[in-house]
């Protein structure tokens, strides 16, 4: 029940090193890995190379004649149009806000569920359900039955607070999309933090109680430091998925009003599907990948720190 401590990763290699493996033995070890490795290289890396190539081409689906060399002009237009920058910015806001709020709620819910009460299992099941709802279904149900200005449930529930027929998706589009992202990802964060809480040694907490530490102090001094690797893990994994959010944007606001909710995935989708601009989309894609690599370099380092790395046997 624990994200194992990081010391195993840093620990010195076992003293007994396997004898210099023979050529045959090396291939015997390598062979099972090859199918998956080759598969992943072909399916994930080749499209990136093709993307790189198209980013230097002028290629529109709707213009006959196919692709021809365009030099850096695609990159120039990506950097000079405000649309890409604005999409990048929306991606950052959406991801950061959703991840942070989902994590805060996740920690609070986990603390609630860590206590014993009647029907704990049922409440846990209720809370994880939003994560399991198909994102396309969640987006459409929020856009219609929940948020509709004329018959939506939310306006009805907020009526006592002076809210009257607010058209959430036109007046608070970005916020609405983020709310649905948070609703779907809070359970994920909660599950990870809850696993951490339940792995917390009970005797330490007991000792703190005997010493007369208050609940808040106990949380700050003991529980939070213990939970830290779990929180980092949740933020990391949540970001990987949330930065690619597309379904909610496409189905709730279609990127609008205007471009108010156009994030990078939706921007790239529009470039291909509406502007038929393969070259432009490819250049924007290459820049997205470069930015991702920068962020991912830090993320991978965090991964190595957070993850359990018990050495493989022999």
């Amino acid at each position, binding site marked *: 029940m624990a994200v194992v401590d990081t010391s195993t990763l840093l620990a010195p290699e076992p003293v007994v090193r396997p004898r210099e493996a023979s050529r045959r033995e090396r291939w015997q070890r390598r062979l099972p890995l090859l199918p*998956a*490795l080759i598969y992943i290289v072909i399916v994930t890396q080749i499209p990136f190379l093709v993307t790189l190539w198209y980013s230097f081409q002028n290629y529109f689906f709707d213009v006959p004649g196919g692709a021809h060399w365009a030099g850096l002009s695609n990159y120039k237009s990506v950097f000079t149009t405000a649309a890409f920058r604005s999409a990048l910015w929306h991606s950052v806001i959406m991801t950061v806000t959703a991840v942070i709020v989902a994590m805060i709620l996740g920690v609070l819910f986990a603390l609630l569920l860590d206590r014993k009460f009647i029907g704990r299992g049922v409440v846990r099941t209720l*809370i*994880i359900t939003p994560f399991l709802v*198909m994102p396309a279904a969640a987006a459409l149900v929020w856009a219609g039955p929940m948020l509709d200005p004329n018959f939506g*449930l939310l306006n*009805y529930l907020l009526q006592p607070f002076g809210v009257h027929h607010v058209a959430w998706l036109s007046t608070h589009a970005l916020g609405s999309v983020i709310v649905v992202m948070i609703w779907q990802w809070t359970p994920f964060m909660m599950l990870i933090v809850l696993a951490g809480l339940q792995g917390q040694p009970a005797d330490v907490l007991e000792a703190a109680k005997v010493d007369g530490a208050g609940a808040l102090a106990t949380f700050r001094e003991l529980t939070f430091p213990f939970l830290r690797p779990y929180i980092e893990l949740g933020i990391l994994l949540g970001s990987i998925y949330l930065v690619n959010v597309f379904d909610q944007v496409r189905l709730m606001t279609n990127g609008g009003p205007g471009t108010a909710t156009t994030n990078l995935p939706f921007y790239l989708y529009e470039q291909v599907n509406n502007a038929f601009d393969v070259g432009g989309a490819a250049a924007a894609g290459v820049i997205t990948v470069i930015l991702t690599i920068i962020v991912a370099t830090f993320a991978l380092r965090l991964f190595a720190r957070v993850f359990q790395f018990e050495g493989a046997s022999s």
Partner: protein
Amino acid sequence: MSALPLRTREPGPQRFRDMSVKVGWGIVAWVVGIAFFLPVLWMVLTAFKPESAAETWPPRFTFSPTLSQFRLVFSGWGPYVTHSVIATVGSTILVLLLGVPAAYALSVHPVKHWRDGLFFFISTKMLPIVAVIGPLYVIALKTHLLDSIWLLIILYTAMNLPLAIWLIRSFMLEVPSELLEASELDGAGRIREMTEVILPVISPGLVSTALICVIFAWNELFLALNLTVTNAATMPMFLISSVPQEGLYIAHLSAAATVASVPVILVGWIAQRSLVRGLSMGAIK
């Protein structure tokens, strides 16, 4: 004698206070749980409404339930659900076929650079698939895979394989080394070691790996929307098709959304315990 009643009474209020604090937090937890579940409940409730009762102000909580929306959904979902099942099951099988040997080569008898291998796989999860969607479309077009179920199987396999390798590896590391040594002493080769020792031990782990893959493949929309039209359109696209340009559709949409979501919700409810481990790619046991 007079001290005795005092002593026995003393824990009373204290226990009562502990009790009420406990009940109080329990009630808070229930309220939070129900509030969080409310949109799902509303979706299911709306699915049983006649269309005329779904778009009213104030929203109606009492109505005579009807199955007509579900009938409508089941009359139109045939091809979509077939494609979804094929893409989900097909890609999950392929993930396990590729993932089990790879995880083995990164754990039990590891290759020299097993750490680099693990990180290579996970790094492909971080590269955004959205960045390559245009070229992917062109590649699919030229290889005649556009709008084919094979394309989805191929891509969903690549999408889930890194996660599965990490997860299966974490299960393989738990196979007791005595078992492995015993089979080696018996003179069992690598294949027998796999089929007779490792696979039986990790089979529950493989089930939870498969469930995680099913969840992600079943729910995927972006690739399906961009690369399929009719021959391979999946359940998320069925949902989109249930929103017409005009007319009342809220009840019908809710029924379609309920039907599309129920399989994964059930899988997730049943597999709650292994959900955490799967989602954290084996980091949390």
